[in-house]
């Protein structure tokens, strides 16, 4: 086993005074079609090894691939959503290489004729500004098999005695989306990288073409980073005129946070090398999630000589303009616009909307509002206890709520009980606690726990009279106009009523009697 030693890095802020970063991101997305790209094998995740494999996957003699219609449609829809041109005519190509993750000794991909090209995606940054990511191309290809390395101490490639390969994943439709060099981001380069992958994920989710689960590998990112000397402001003409430096490609950066960290790390690492008079080796780097560093992988060399040629077993894909326009008609509202629309519909401040987005609760709130709750109540209840508990469990709110059977309809029902005056705020919290504990619907929990505001105004009035009589000095203050003093009396009234009263109503009564 080789020992991994961390490279020297330069402080990020110092690096930014000396260098200008340029990035290029390649994102691979597995489509969630029912079948593979070129055969009818299922694509289900987690199946027994080699149970979803056929002669086409294995490249057995005589096996003929046929293109999955839905995969082509998904590719075109992705291209359109990324504002790309869609090819009138394009072919698949064989990317030849000898490596056991593909039993055919080639990967069917697209080379110089991608299905989609020349697009862009506008990405919103933390401060509300927009960065336009230019898209070079999006092309169709197939995923490779999965290797398990046996005998090495860590299960990684290095030190392995032999490898075990499962071809279930080989042939799953993959779309590779490649950006043009992302320039002008300056010190915000890591943030831009993360924001782009995040926006792309939202877009693909809205298109309903992929599971986009980075942790399961259905969306994977390779980050290219290079530095050039800093000569002015990141977007200045002088700066943009400086030739690009040598890049490294960090492979399989598989979470949004890692995208940001890996880019930042590579910038600092390049800066240390360049500042010390060294040169950057064009190579692939492996990202280590645990230590937050990259280590050297393969040096790009003539080993990367793929001898691409047009795939003779597949005929060209030539989508008619009618087909393209029909597919354009199926595009969803772009996620950025949708967010702005919902924020305005719901009347949330920027900060409130960001909380909702960070909690991943947009869809839950949308459904809760559709089920009749106010937007304010929907946010209050979802971002309260359920969100807190989901965080504690390390789950996202949607998964957590689904696991408990907590639905938007429940929250709307709870809000309805409060609006109708049956529950006050603290009772509603108890009811939600019961619902989260699996005791049933809000109404059922309220019934079972006997939670109901006393609707008997006579009882409430008697309690108010009693409390006023017991606190003549406070009552005098209120009579003198010190309305804030009413709080002390409301607390006592609620105590008299054993919590089963509407605090708002108690306040009204107190003020009515003393003013």
């Amino acid at each position, binding site marked *: 086993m080789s020992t991994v030693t961390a490279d020297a890095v330069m402080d990020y802020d110092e690096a930014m005074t000396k260098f200008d970063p340029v990035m290029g991101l390649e994102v691979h997305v597995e489509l969630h079609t029912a079948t593979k790209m070129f055969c009818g094998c299922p694509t289900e995740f987690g199946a027994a090894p080699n149970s979803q*494999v056929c002669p086409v996957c294995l490249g057995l003699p005589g096996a003929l691939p046929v293109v999955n219609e839905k995969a082509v449609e998904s590719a075109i829809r992705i291209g359109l959503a990324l504002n790309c041109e869609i090819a009138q005519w394009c072919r698949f190509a064989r990317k030849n290489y000898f490596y056991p993750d593909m039993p055919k000794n080639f990967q069917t991909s697209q080379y110089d004729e991608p299905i989609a090209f020349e697009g862009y995606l506008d990405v919103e940054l933390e401060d509300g500004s927009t960065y336009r990511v230019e898209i070079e191309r999006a092309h169709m290809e197939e995923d490779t098999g999965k290797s398990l390395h046996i005998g090495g101490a860590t299960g990684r490639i290095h030190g392995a005695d032999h490898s075990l390969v499962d071809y279930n994943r080989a042939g799953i439709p993959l779309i590779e989306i490649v950006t043009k060099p992302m320039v002008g981001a300056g010190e915000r380069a890591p943030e831009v990288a993360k924001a782009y992958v995040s926006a792309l994920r939202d877009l693909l989710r809205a298109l309903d073409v992929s599971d986009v689960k980075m942790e399961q590998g259905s969306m994977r990112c390779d980050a290219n980073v290079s530095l050039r000397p800093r000569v002015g402001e990141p977007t200045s003409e002088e700066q943009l005129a400086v030739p690009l430096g040598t890049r490294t490609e960090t492979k399989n950066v598989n979470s949004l946070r890692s995208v940001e960290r890996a880019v930042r790390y590579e910038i600092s690492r390049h800066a240390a090398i360049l500042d010390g008079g060294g040169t950057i080796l064009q190579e692939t780097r492996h990202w280590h999630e645990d230590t937050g560093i990259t280590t050297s992988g393969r040096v790009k060399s003539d080993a990367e000589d793929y001898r691409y040629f047009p795939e003779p077993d597949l005929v060209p894909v030539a989508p008619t303009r009618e087909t393209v326009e029909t597919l354009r008609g199926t595009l969803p509202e772009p996620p950025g616009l949708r967010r702005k629309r919902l924020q305005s519909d719901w009347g949330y401040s920027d900060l409130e909307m960001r909380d909702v987005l960070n909690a991943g609760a947009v869809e839950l709130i949308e459904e809760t509002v559709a089920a009749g709750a106010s937007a304010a109540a929907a946010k209050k209840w979802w971002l309260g206890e359920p969100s807190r508990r989901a965080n504690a469990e390390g789950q996202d709110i949607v998964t957590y709520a689904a696991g408990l059977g907590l639905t938007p309809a429940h929250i709307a029902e709870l809000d309805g009980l409060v609006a109708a005056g049956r529950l006050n705020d603290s009772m509603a919290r108890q009811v939600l606690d019961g619902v989260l504990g699996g005791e049933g619907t809000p109404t059922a929990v309220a019934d079972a726990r006997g939670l109901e505001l006393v609707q008997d105004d006579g009882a409430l009035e008697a309690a108010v009279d009693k409390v006023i009589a017991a606190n003549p000095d406070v009552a005098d203050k209120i009579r003198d106009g010190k309305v804030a003093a009413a709080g002390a009396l409301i607390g006592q009234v609620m105590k008299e009523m054993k919590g089963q009263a509407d605090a708002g109503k108690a306040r009204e009564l107190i003020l009515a009697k003393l003013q």
Partner: protein
Amino acid sequence: MSSLSRDDVAHLAGLARIELSDDELDRMVGELGVILESVAKVQQAPTDGVAPMSHPMPLTNVTRPDVVRPSLGAAAVLAGAPEAEQERFSVPRILDED
């Protein structure tokens, strides 16, 4: 048409992961050279005004619906493996050039 050099053949052998002895390399330079010469003759055909093509038939958009068809089953798949372990193809350690 430039002829194939010994280095070209060694490079191709490397890409194809085929180990060739010095004798075999010498022989392949000659044999592949003959094949290339034959192909070069085809290139003399008059092709002015003929678009390059990769497929003999003018077909496009041959697709299949996204409907699952039966796979082979792991046992049949692995029957073709030189060695198998844990329902997977067992292969020599990879990436020793890494």
